[in-house]
């Protein structure tokens, strides 16, 4: 119990101080000194006193010794005043230095001997520093204090059992032994346990003693002994002058006392608009409420009066949604008109509008709505165009495709049952019909005028058919084109597309002169487009992994797939009439490719959900795209990739 030890030491110290103070009083009769001494000991003391550096009533040595440890300063003090016996100076046998040895203090009957005889003098240090050492410290003479022999746990227990005072003793770390607690200490512990003030002498409820206040204890301490000046009891001349000035003003009525300054003053009106107005433009005046109409009259024409249904409807709608805030009512004479119950509410709403409703200035369009519709030429002014049906062809199955020959004399049509029919336009007579195995996907007449044939797309195959009754020269040229005597050299890479021509002896009107077999799995070709010159032809099939797009060259009997892979579902293709450009329409976009450079030029975005048709102007500058959502987009290819104009059929 280091703290214990320390406190006991302190107690001793204060004891000695008290003693010294007492001696001082006796010896020198000067209070300052004892205070000074207390100030010097402030570090070790309880901190009751502040250090007081200003008062310097002692010697220089005293000042120097302030920083030295307490015992020494005590000693010097004692030495100065010769209270205790003189110390002897001897040579230490440990350090070999000179040191002062004090005579042993004989403990008096009133000296605190319980702590005095503690042999260990290491001071207030953590005792665990000595845990691994055989000793616990040093005594006054610098000799080691050895740890007392302590038995094992059993011995300790037995000791506690044997010793009746064991429960009132505590382990002292400084001496490494149990020490019985004093009665005072026990008392203190007991009081602490009971949450009482530790000091038994202390009375927290002692009666107050009035030392300085109360009757008869006043102290009279005048600040100045000078007599009262005369001016204290003569009235001021200047004040009198000032007061008289006010009094005179009040008497003359120049000052009205207690006149209200601001309240209850009537507003004064004057010619506020007489001076020139400011340069600022006046604020825009608030919109005026609508003027009353006939319906608001007290005696309106009868047609304005609401029917019971209208009245009910008006009453059922919310006040905010009503188109007028009153119900028309007819009174037979003016004296019967009652007061209008919503008058104040109406005024209030108007005021709310004035200061809370956001105002926006809107330009009111005062135009005829019909003038907004653009004027287009009337269709009747664009005549002549066919206005009535002249012919009617009929197919047994669903007709899926039709194509007109470049000279306009023939029409060929195909249906779902695999029948292709050739018609003469002028007469409407069916000239010939061909039969194929599956559905007819597409039909297209070759645009060349020196030859005459058309292509038919059926399942995985494209047939080139020659119509009958051709002039010999044209027939010759057609034959030359489709089945030349000398076949062009086939390309070295093996193409999946097979071009076959039946032997010349088997040629009839019924069989195709040239058959292009698309690779297996490519499905039905549902769109065929010719280049303007009639040598190239593009087909779009429903299946196939290249988007089903093939470009066939008739003269070289060669087919190629221009795309390895196409994003989206190809609907239509189209050749540019003049440039080597190629348009591919997927469901929503139209892409424009340069075939010779093999790259994408631009992507047109018509904004149509599903493209149904597409065509290009012969000049090659304009493209129109139609969709299933009743929209038509007109692209100018020199402008942006957005439509130049969109027409909606509503």
């Amino acid at each position: 119990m280091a703290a214990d030890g320390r406190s006991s030491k302190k107690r001793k110290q204060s004891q000695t101080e008290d003693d010294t103070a007492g001696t001082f009083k006796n010896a020198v009769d000067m209070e300052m000194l004892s205070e000074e001494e207390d100030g010097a000991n402030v570090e070790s003391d309880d901190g009751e006193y502040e250090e007081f550096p200003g008062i310097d009533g002692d010697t220089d040595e005293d000042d120097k010794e302030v920083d030295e440890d307490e015992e020494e300063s005590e000693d010097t003090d004692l030495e100065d005043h010769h209270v205790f016996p003189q110390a002897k100076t001897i040579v230490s046998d440990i350090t070999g230095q000179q040191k002062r040895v004090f005579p042993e203090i004989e403990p008096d009957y009133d000296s605190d001997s319980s702590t005095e005889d503690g042999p260990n003098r290491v001071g207030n240090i953590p005792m665990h520093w000595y845990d691994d050492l055989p000793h616990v410290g040093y005594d006054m003479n610098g000799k080691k204090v050895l740890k007392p022999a302590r038995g094992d746990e059993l011995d300790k227990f037995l000791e506690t059992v044997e010793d009746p005072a064991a429960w009132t003793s505590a382990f002292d770390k400084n001496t490494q032994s149990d020490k019985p607690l004093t009665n005072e200490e026990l008392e203190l512990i007991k009081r602490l346990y009971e949450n009482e003030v530790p000091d038994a002498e202390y009375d927290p409820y002692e009666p107050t003693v009035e030392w300085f206040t109360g009757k008869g204890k006043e102290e009279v301490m005048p600040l100045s002994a000078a007599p009262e000046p005369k001016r204290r009891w003569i009235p001021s001349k200047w004040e009198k002058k000032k007061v008289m000035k006010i009094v005179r003003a009040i008497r003359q009525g120049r000052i009205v006392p207690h006149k209200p300054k601001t309240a209850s003053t009537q507003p004064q009106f004057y010619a506020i608009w007489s001076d020139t107005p400011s340069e600022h433009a006046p604020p825009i005046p608030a919109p005026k409420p609508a003027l009353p109409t006939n319906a608001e009259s007290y005696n309106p024409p009868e047609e304005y009066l609401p029917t019971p249904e209208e009245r009910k409807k008006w009453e059922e709608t919310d006040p905010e949604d009503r188109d007028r805030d009153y119900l028309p009512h007819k009174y037979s004479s003016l004296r019967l008109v009652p007061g209008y119950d919503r008058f104040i509410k109406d005024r209030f709403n108007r005021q709310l509008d004035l200061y809370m409703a956001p105002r926006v200035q809107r330009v009111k369009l005062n135009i005829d709505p019909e003038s907004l519709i653009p004027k287009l030429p009337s269709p009747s002014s664009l005549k002549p165009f066919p206005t009535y049906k002249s012919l009617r062809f009929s197919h047994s199955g669903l007709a899926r495709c039709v194509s007109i020959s470049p000279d306009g004399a023939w029409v060929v049509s195909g249906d779902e049952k695999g029948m292709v029919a050739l018609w003469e336009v002028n007469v409407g007579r069916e000239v010939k019909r061909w039969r194929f195995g599956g559905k007819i996907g597409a039909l297209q007449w070759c645009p060349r005028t020196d030859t005459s044939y058309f292509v038919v797309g059926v399942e995985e195959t494209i047939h080139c058919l020659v119509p009958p009754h051709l002039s010999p020269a044209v027939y010759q040229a057609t034959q030359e084109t489709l089945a030349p005597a000398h076949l062009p050299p086939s390309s070295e890479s093996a193409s999946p597309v097979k071009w076959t021509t039946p032997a010349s002896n088997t040629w009839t009107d019924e069989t195709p002169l040239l058959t292009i077999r698309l690779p297996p799995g490519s499905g039905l070709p549902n769109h065929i487009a010719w280049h303007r010159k009639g040598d190239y032809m593009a087909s779009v099939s429903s299946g196939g992994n290249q988007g089903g797009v093939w470009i066939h060259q008739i003269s070289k009997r060669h087919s190629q797939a221009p795309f390895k892979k196409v994003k989206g579902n190809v609907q239509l293709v189209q050749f540019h009439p003049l440039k080597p450009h190629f348009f591919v329409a997927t469901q929503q976009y139209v892409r424009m490719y340069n075939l010779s450079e093999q790259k994408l030029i631009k992507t047109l975005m018509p904004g149509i959900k599903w493209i149904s048709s597409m065509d290009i102007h012969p000049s090659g500058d304009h493209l129109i795209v139609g969709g299933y959502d009743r929209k038509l987009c007109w692209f100018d290819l020199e402008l942006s990739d957005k439509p130049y104009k969109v027409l909606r059929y509503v």
Partner: protein
Amino acid sequence: MGRLRQKGKAGAAKAYVTRTAAIKKLQCSLADFRRLCILKGIFPREPRSRKKANKGSSAPTSFYYAKDIAYLAHEPVLRKLREHKAFAKKLSRALGRGEWSDAKSLEENKPVYKLDHIVKERYPTFIDAVRDIDDALCMIFLFASLPSNTRVPPTLVENCARLAAEWQLYVMHSRSLRKAFLSIKGVYYQAEVMDQPVTWLVPYQFTQNIPADVDVRVMLTFLELYQTLLGFVFFKLYTDAGLVYPPPLDAKKDEGAAGIGAFAIQDTTRPTTKPLPKTKVVEIEGRQVTGKDVHKTIKSLAASTTADSNADVDMAGPESTSANDEEDFVPQPSKSDPQSVASLPTLHSLQSLPPTLNTSLFAPYTFFLSRETSRPIFEFLVRSFGGRIGWPASSGSGSPFDENDDSITHVIIDRPVVDRPDETPEERERKSRRKYIQPQWIVDCINAGKILVEGPYAQGVSELPPHLSPFGEQEGAYDPTAQGGEDADMEDEEEEEEVEMDEDGDGDDGEQEEDEEDASANALKAIAEATDEASLRTAELAAEAAGLDSTAFEKEVGKARRKFKKAAKEKSTVKDKEKDMNKMMMSNKQRKLYEKMKYSQNKRSDEVRFLSIRVVHILILSEMQRANLQAKKRDIQKQKAKSKS
């Protein structure tokens, strides 16, 4: 590359502030902010994009112009409001401590704000102010009729009543009332002051109760501003007219509920009161002649001529208007402000005046109000148009003459006719000399600009002619006068009727048949000429009403219908197809605008059609009733004849 622009440092984010931000900036309470907004006329604005103005938030808030709020920060009224807040604290403290004398002196010196500068600021020119006094007058007239309570102090009501009386006095004196309209909400008046139409609404004389959902504080704040504004406007109007403002109030007359009569109009040039400006001419001519005086003289000359030449009313009318215009032209000599230039009488404004504006319409007549008619309304109306009017003592004191006066030409009466057998011959004689008319006659005369025939408005007539709004309807709205020709020429028809009255029963029947013949022919013609669905239907109904022969009618109708349908179909299909094709070329924006305009057009035309159909229905019903009555009458006559024979 331009400088990088930080978000929220320019544009809408800078130009607008939310209400909360404005209050925070001004460091005042919401109530004070509202008060300021009302007084200064600041209102929220709608930014083009709410998100941009509110830092990306689209929460429902109201926005103000940041500049408006910045101006408010220097407002003297705001300072006064803050002072008032401090005063309120001091006062409550003094009251809480029981320091009564302190509280009293505090109360006497409490800060009050003046609104003069705000009036000048909001209405830089007098014309601006006059243009905007509509709402102010409505409020003043409303509060003048309210009962006072703790929230509405009696002094306020008194002041409002005074202002209302002053306005009416001015309007009567300057003869500037133009139109009046008896509506179910109250009486609308329209005066023309400084070439500006001023319309105000006065409630009927009934006790109004302030509803619970009305914030009286807001109304009182508006009223504060309106009182100040009207004070200045009236001051200018009175002084420009050479009158003393405020007009002196005769307390004794006011006690006797004399109303407007309690105020006396006083000329500034002469200290004595002079109710009529007739002899003013002589007095003024002797004085030094300034420009103002000249115009005043011209005006009073015009007034006196109109007053003198009562016999030739229509001649005097246009003269007086031109004099008015000239008078209005001069007091606005402003070189800098283009606003006042715009307010000069242009050709348009001259044309917009009613052609026969006659401000001394009632000058030849003397009216007497019956007990049940509202005195303030008709006193104002009649005196505004130069008439003399008296009333019984039960309607208030100050009547210039009593009921027995011989000069009375018209009695405004609003009660059914009661036979009084105990009439003295004197009374009967007097009664026959006077015309007894219902109140609507006065208003209709004013709106028509001429004296109407009293017949249809006579006392006890149950079915008065409909009272139409003189302000007209919207463009393209249903016009009740255009429907039947008979409604338009009320007088002529009335005269005809009077003639008819003289005829005996048989003659009447003959007339009736003739009428029917005419009607049936007309109906057939209408059916044949009918070009659209609505008119066809109307024609059908008219024919039905005329009691046309059913078979012939059916045939005619069938023919007309077929013809109409065929033509319409052909026309519509071709036209519509072409139109649809043209519509294809419209842009989305244009199409939406077109649809919107078409919608409103259709709605309006639907309403017109609906009303015109209904008027035909009503006609038919009344015709049928009349026919029934006739038939019954005939039956009775026949039976009588039979019983006689």
